[in-house]
């Protein structure tokens, strides 16, 4: 497997192969904790950290691990990274740690992380693996943040509430009240809201992709024929 360029890695992680919008991996935490920006940011940071750590470690030991036992080894590495993250959050953002609750340890079972370890990091040198982890994490985190912001704004009429849980007491003033005396729209905060908004985001992504594709087709004189197959897990060569 040839090593993809860093541009490819970035485009894949952030847009073309976005873990949340295209691969549809890690939906459980995505749907469960994105009821506000601060929750989403906390989970995004934790997931990105785990992704970077596990991808780097897996890439480092890639020549030592036999193929037959690779999955248990990867899961152990991921679990160790998650435990570390959990302890860090417990130390520095205890309230957020309590709010995120079971979804922090559950990062271990997040398919994005095992998917990147098995599909990318175990065949790639350290630096590409690290950047892939980082960009996949950023792509996932960006969707988490957008979803969290949408649901918080629609559900409570405010944005960036309780940011002091993550950034210390000074951040308590970051709260923006969008609408005075807003009538809470509970559906946006409840699980159905998460499903509806995720669906909308995916639809918007498809819309933008179709736009781009149409513009490209217009630019091209003769449409090149090629495979229409959608690749779900990274670049395979």
């Amino acid at each position, binding site marked *: 497997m040839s090593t993809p360029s860093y541009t490819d890695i970035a485009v894949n992680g952030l847009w073309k192969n976005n873990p949340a919008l295209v691969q549809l991996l890690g939906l459980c935490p995505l749907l469960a904790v994105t009821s506000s920006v601060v929750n989403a940011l906390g989970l995004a940071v934790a997931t990105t950290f785990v992704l970077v750590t596990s991808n780097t470690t897996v890439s480092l030991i890639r020549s030592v691990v036999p193929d037959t036992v690779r999955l248990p080894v990867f899961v152990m590495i991921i679990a160790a990274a998650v435990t570390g993250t959990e302890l860090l959050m417990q130390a520095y953002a205890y309230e957020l740690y309590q709010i995120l609750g079971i979804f922090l340890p559950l990062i271990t079972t997040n398919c994005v992380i095992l998917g990147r370890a098995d599909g990318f990091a175990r065949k790639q040198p350290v630096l590409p693996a690290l950047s892939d982890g980082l960009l996949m994490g950023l792509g996932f985190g960006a969707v988490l943040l957008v979803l969290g912001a949408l649901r918080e704004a629609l559900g409570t009429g405010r944005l960036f509430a309780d940011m002091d849980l993550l950034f210390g007491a000074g951040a308590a003033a970051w709260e923006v009240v969008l609408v005075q005396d807003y*009538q809470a*729209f*509970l*559906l*946006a905060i*409840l699980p*159905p809201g998460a499903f*509806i908004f995720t669906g909308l985001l995916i639809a918007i992504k498809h819309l933008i992709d179709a736009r781009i594709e149409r513009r490209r087709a217009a630019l091209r004189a003769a449409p090149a024929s090629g495979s229409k197959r959608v690749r779900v897990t990274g670049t395979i060569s």
Partner: protein
Amino acid sequence: MKLLRVSSPHAHGPNSTQRVMQQVLLASLPGVFVLTVFFGFGTLVNILWAAVVALACESLALWLRKRPLGFYLGDCSALVTALLLGIALPPYAPWWLIAIGVASAILMAKHLYGGLGYNPFNPAMVGYVVLLISFPVQMTSWAPPRGLTENVPGLLDALRACFLPGQFDAITMATPLDVLRQNSGLMMDDLWAQAPQFGRWAGIGWEWANLAFLAGGLWLLYRRIFTWHAPVAFLASLALMAALFYDGGSSASGGSPLFHLLSGATMLGAFFIITDPVSSAVSVRGRLVFGALIGILVYLIRAWGNYPDAVAFAVLIANLCAPFIDHYTQPRTYGHRPPAREDA
């Protein structure tokens, strides 16, 4: 002499979607009239505003989906959705509440699934449930009936309540179903004497509204808009459940069968909601099962649930089961053996 050469079928029904929907609209008139007499003009304003929003949402969705506007607007199905939602919502609801409900019914429950005929859930009930879980306070405040309040709001007051919700002090009162659920330490006769909401058989106003919807439903049945199976199964199973759990006098048990038949949205549900041809089961035996399931669920949610009425939730749950029910109640084709299931 002119000989028309037409191919079969020679007998054809006069029922187009448009005609069916128009008759449903017509049949709801007595019920709406009784609701207006007892609770004031709130319900009427609800329905009219809901109809405006429904037509706007329907047009928007059709335009986005590049469908012919006139044809689909003409089938009146959006109006029926608006009517059902307008009746189900508490009178004097603010305009934004109704708008959100109708928009989620038409855009989300109907057009996201592919429009009329493709929706697995009853759109009006989806709209109602969206509102109920999002705005429990507004959705559980029902106006007191005529006789229990000095002044039943007129048309102007109703309009003001809807469009200028800040300037209108709505008077609200617990519905009979709520009163019964909140009190479990009384005898039924004492409860009837204490709470002013109760009338002859059920709640003041409610009993007559239910009877009026029953009358409208019977007319629809006579016009053969739907078959009797689902409504009868629903009413029978609800009455049976009530009879099983009713101990004859204490308010800890769920109320008499007659009380349940004439309370809340029972008759509206039986004849106007569960008979929706799209989202209900289609085979004859399937409709019996479908109706009976809703009856059981309505009683369970009314007796042990925490919501003002149960018809919306029961209908949605039964909608989920409808394909499953149809699968197991497939009728035998005449002259053939029962269908062998290869997938079983």
